[in-house]
């Protein structure tokens, strides 16, 4: 809370000072306002606003945005029909539990969680070495490379660029596409999903880890390296400890994303609850579909909550 002004005459004084500053031909002041140069801030933000408006309008035109269709009587009727068909949701034991253990919606939920966990662990295992090889202050710059030969630094740079390229590729291919690829390789089922999430998230986590590692304070790293530690020891004892909580926190966030991704991997047959989503949609079983959507909702909310709790514990 801010305290009330100590006395009225003080604010009066500061006001008169302000006025004096405005009126007086203070050379510094004028220089400062001239330094701003092209237009006042409000003018510039107006320009940006117009540019943004044009971009959004263009994008809306490309995506055939038509609000009238959305609120038309036909659309309203269709949506109402869907809701009416979906209520009440199918909560029968046969649908939820299935006939065998590895059957039923609940098992699909468990499978989804399991895919996300194993997928993220695989991603971390792949991301750590890739991130280290993709970090410039590990491969060729900074305190560990003063006085090293040009060839050594060049090859380090090459390794770093190459690794960054691999990470970009892993990241650029969507997890659903990886899922499709792995289904053809290892067959239908959750293992394909694990591989898909692992590979895609290795690209995401590897880039983030590397960016964070490049942003660390070089002083502790130099201090550790100067004790005679090897480069690898310096990485693990001088660079990584500076941001362990950040790395763990970001990994947990990616796990949240992985859960969401795992819910639709079933679209391409890579296991999880997504299978129920597509099957019930194509068979028009809306009551079952609504149950599956509720399950996905609960799953995502629970994962968000859990990961937020864990992260708060870390900081």
């Amino acid at each position, binding site marked *: 809370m801010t305290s009330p002004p100590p006395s009225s005459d003080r604010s009066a004084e500061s006001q008169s000072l302000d006025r004096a500053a405005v009126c007086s031909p203070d050379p510094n002041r004028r220089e400062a306002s001239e330094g701003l140069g092209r237009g006042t801030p409000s003018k510039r933000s107006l320009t940006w606003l117009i540019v943004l408006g044009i971009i959004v309008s263009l994008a809306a035109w490309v995506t055939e945005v038509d609000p009238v269709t959305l609120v038309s009587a036909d659309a309203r009727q269709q949506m109402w029909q869907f809701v009416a068909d979906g209520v009440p949701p199918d909560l029968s034991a046969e649908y939820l539990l299935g006939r065998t253990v590895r059957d039923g919606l609940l098992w699909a939920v468990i499978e989804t969680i399991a895919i996300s966990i194993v997928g993220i662990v695989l991603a971390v295992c792949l991301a750590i070495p890739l991130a280290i090889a993709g970090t410039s202050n590990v491969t060729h710059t900074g305190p560990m490379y003063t006085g090293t030969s040009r060839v050594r630094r060049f090859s380090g740079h090459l390794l770093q660029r190459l690794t960054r390229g691999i990470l970009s590729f892993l990241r650029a291919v969507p997890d659903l596409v990886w899922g499709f690829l792995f289904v053809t390789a290892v067959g239908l089922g959750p293992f394909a999903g694990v591989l898909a999430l692992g590979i895609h998230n290795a690209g995401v986590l590897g880039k983030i880890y590397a960016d964070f590692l490049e942003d660390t304070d070089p002083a502790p790293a130099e201090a550790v390296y100067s004790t005679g*530690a090897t480069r690898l*020891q310096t990485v693990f004892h001088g660079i990584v400890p500076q941001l362990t909580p950040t790395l763990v926190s970001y990994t947990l966030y990616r796990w949240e994303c992985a859960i969401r991704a795992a819910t639709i991997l079933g679209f391409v047959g890579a296991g999880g609850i997504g299978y129920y989503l597509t099957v019930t949609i194509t068979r028009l079983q809306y009551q079952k579909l609504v149950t599956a959507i509720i399950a996905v909702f609960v799953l995502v909310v629970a994962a968000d909550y859990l990961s937020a709790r864990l992260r708060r514990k870390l900081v």
Partner: protein
Amino acid sequence: MSLLGFHDVTKTYDGTTKPAVADVSLTVDPGEDVAIVGPSGAGKTTFLRLATGALGPDSGRVTIDGDPDPDRTQTALVYQEGALLERRSVLSNVVVGTLGSQSRLRGLLEPFYPREPERAIQLLERAGIAEYADTRVDQLSSGERQRVACVRALIQESRLLLADEPTANLDPTTSQRILDLLSADLDDRSLIVVIHDIDLALDHFERVVGFSGGTIQFDKPASRVSAVDVDRLFDESATAAGSTRPTRAQPRSKPGMQPDQ
């Protein structure tokens, strides 16, 4: 043979034209303790980093024990403001100092699970901070942190011990304690300390080297450093940098006073 040798060493940082250290020649013998004094930007830290090999000279040679390409374990540096790992415990920060004498693989785990922490604890006791062995470094006071940095350097048992402003912003008692810790049992080892407080330098060290503008202005036994030497050191820098002098010697009657406080 001298332990540390600087032979016409010049170093210019990338992006600057004026050398940080210009044509510096100096030798330090085993058993010597040397204070380096001078205004900010005089090249003192650059000198230390050249001595550890963290920086390579543009021209000239830096030798340790006559070796122009020394092993990193031969020097130990107490970094300015410590350069500690903030989220790690005092003990694991100190154990980092033993990495150079470990096998590569074992060294990877050592700071997490120090197998023989006795020596670290002993040194922490000598520094008076053994009770904080399991405390995270970011929860210590600046004097305690500085002592952790000293212990990390001491545990390396290097022959050449270097320290960059280890007493900056500390009270006189703590400063004294840190210098005592660093200079204990020198024998055939040498100590070089960059220090801001000229009185501490004159009281505590045998030899004082004055740096200004990247060059050595004077290099003499502490007993023969005059007020004129000190004045000239800071006056020259003031004219060179076009600024007011950052510090000057306090009257000798008040030893331990910090000029910047």
